């Protein structure tokens, strides 16, 4: 845009300079015409007229001399001298015009035309002097009564008249040529200027139109870009608002999880004090509730570590099947009626991983299945393809609600979908994903065709440290 305005201003500037220069050229030409050519032409025409009268007086003098008409001869003679004085004045005036005006003319004109005219005028002056001398001789001869050379001198005079006239014509022709040339140059200049100005105006117009079109296009693009950005900001804002709501809910529900076990603790104390239950039972209960609080708090701390990419893994080699078996055995102790846990664990699957963390993932998954399975079977199975070990926990429970799938492993996912989720603090699966990601493994879930859901994870069998811990908040 700035460049276009610059070009337009530059072109207008060029147009102004051109018209100024053309005007100045035309002015020069006009000046040549008015102060030089025209007065000079007038002078030459007058000289020509005087010359013709001179010619006539010479012819009359010859006639009156031959007819011995002394009286008329004297009249004509006097006329000749008067005309000669006029002629000399006219030549002087013409020379003055050439000298004085010639100085003020443009140098290129002064060089060519003025010099040439000045020379021609000198030569005309010389011719006139010679002519006057001859005339002097002519009139002297007539008074000395000599008869022989009168006709010869008269012929000489006639020749010199012709030379003068020819010189005058020559000067006049040169001046007229100069007039024509000046006129045609002025005309050509006018045309050139007009053409250039038309070109400039059209160019400025085209540039202006193009610029305005470009500016419009840029504006349109900008508007589109702004609309796009606004939409994406609105989306981001919406996402943040949703996350913020989820976080609020999460905090509220996490506090609930932490406070909930306190009630039974107070209850045990109260009942034990009144002797409604024995102290041993109360203490065992209190210990279990305290453990539950600890578990929730630990999970929250782990989530914090995962979100800050600070989850430390302690790699060791162990038998994955043995770990699974131990966890299943422990879980079986707390099974409700109607629910069974089966295993399909073959041989030894040695993996290099963080045993405690992997145990945590398995417990989370089994607990998750137990929450959704009021009666039926939970199958814990492992497999091994040489490089990776996979664990599957398949239940016959309610399955996963389709609305839950996109955020299943995200933090707060449970909280955001209370109506689809019977229990849980929304941390277990997020934590499990963080742990498996940190092992460079894969975690997932799907609904079984015959009912219930399957959760699975796979791990590289050998240690792959420096795993990137995914931050689900950003997904």
């Amino acid at each position, binding site marked *: 845009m700035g460049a276009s305005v610059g070009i337009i201003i530059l072109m207008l500037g060029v147009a102004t300079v051109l018209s100024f220069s053309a005007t100045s050229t035309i002015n020069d030409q006009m000046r040549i015409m008015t102060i030089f050519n025209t007065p000079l032409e007038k002078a030459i025409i007058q000289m020509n007229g005087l010359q013709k009268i001179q010619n006539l007086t010479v012819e009359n003098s010859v006639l009156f001399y031959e007819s011995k008409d002394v009286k008329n001869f004297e009249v004509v003679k006097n006329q000749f001298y008067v005309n000669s004085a006029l002629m000399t004045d006219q030549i002087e005036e013409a020379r003055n015009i050439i000298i004085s005006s010639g100085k003020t003319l443009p140098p290129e004109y002064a060089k060519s035309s003025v010099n040439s005219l000045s020379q021609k005028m000198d030569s005309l002056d010389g011719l006139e002097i010679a002519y006057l001398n001859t005339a002097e001789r002519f009139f002297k001869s007539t008074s000395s009564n000599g008869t022989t050379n009168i006709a010869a001198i008269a012929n000489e005079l006639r020749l010199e008249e012709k030379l003068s006239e020819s010189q005058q014509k020559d000067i006049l022709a040169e001046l007229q040529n100069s007039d024509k040339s000046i006129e045609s140059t002025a005309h050509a200049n006018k045309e050139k200027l007009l053409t250039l100005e038309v070109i400039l105006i059209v160019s400025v117009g085209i540039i202006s139109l193009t610029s305005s079109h470009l500016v419009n296009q840029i504006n349109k693009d900008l508007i589109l870009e702004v609309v796009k950005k606004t939409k994406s900001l609105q989306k981001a804002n919406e996402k943040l608002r949703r996350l913020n709501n989820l976080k609020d809910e999460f905090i*509220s529900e996490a*506090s*609930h999880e932490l406070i909930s076990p306190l*009630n039974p603790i107070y*209850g045990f104390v109260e009942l034990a004090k009144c002797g*409604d239950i024995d102290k041993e039972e109360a203490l065992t209960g209190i210990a279990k509730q305290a453990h539950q609080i600890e578990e929730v708090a630990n999970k929250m701390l782990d989530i914090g570590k995962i979100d800050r990419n600070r989850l430390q893994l302690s790699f060791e080699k162990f038998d994955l099947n043995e770990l699974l078996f131990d966890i299943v055995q422990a879980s079986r102790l707390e099974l409700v009626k109607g629910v069974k846990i089966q295993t399909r664990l073959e041989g030894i699957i040695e993996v290099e991983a963080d045993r405690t963390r992997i145990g945590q993932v398995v417990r989370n998954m089994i607990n998750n299945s137990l929450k959704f399975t009021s009666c039926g079977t939970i199958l814990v199975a492992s497999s091994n393809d040489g490089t990776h070990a996979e664990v599957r926990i398949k239940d016959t429970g309610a399955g996963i609600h389709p609305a839950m799938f996109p955020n299943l492993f995200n933090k707060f996912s449970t909280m955001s979908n209370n109506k689809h989720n*019977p*229990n849980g603090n929304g941390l277990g699966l997020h934590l499990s994903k963080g742990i498996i990601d940190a092992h460079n493994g894969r975690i997932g879930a799907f609904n079984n065709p015959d009912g219930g859901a399957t959760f699975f994870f796979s791990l590289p069998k050998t240690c792959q440290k420096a795993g990137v811990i995914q931050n689900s908040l950003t997904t």
Partner: protein
Amino acid sequence: MGLQILSGEDNEFAAMQYKKIFEKYQHRITIAKDGDDCVATYRKALKESADGQTPFDIVLLDFIMPKKNGVRVAKEILDMKPNQRIIFASAFGTGILDDASAILKDSVEILQKPFSLDFLVKKIENACTLKTPR
């Protein structure tokens, strides 16, 4: 005569304690371990109640319960028996409890956890004595 109480409580220890304390005061308490169980137990008891009266004097619920949350359970129970007295016992902050009480009927009361068992018994006994059943 003791009160008939239905409690939705998924914490087995809390459930055990409710049983102990209410029975100590000669009340009968039925424990449901989740929201679904709570609604089912209520429906069954309502069917069995010959006179069409509310089958329980008080239903004690938590907002967060497995399978079906407390608010949904309360709504379903109130759909069956609009004059059923319900008390929520929850560890939620008071702000959330206030919001919840605004959307629930005035036959619903809210207790904030933690509270003593004795306080719970007194609260329930008072609620049933002072307020005239509708």
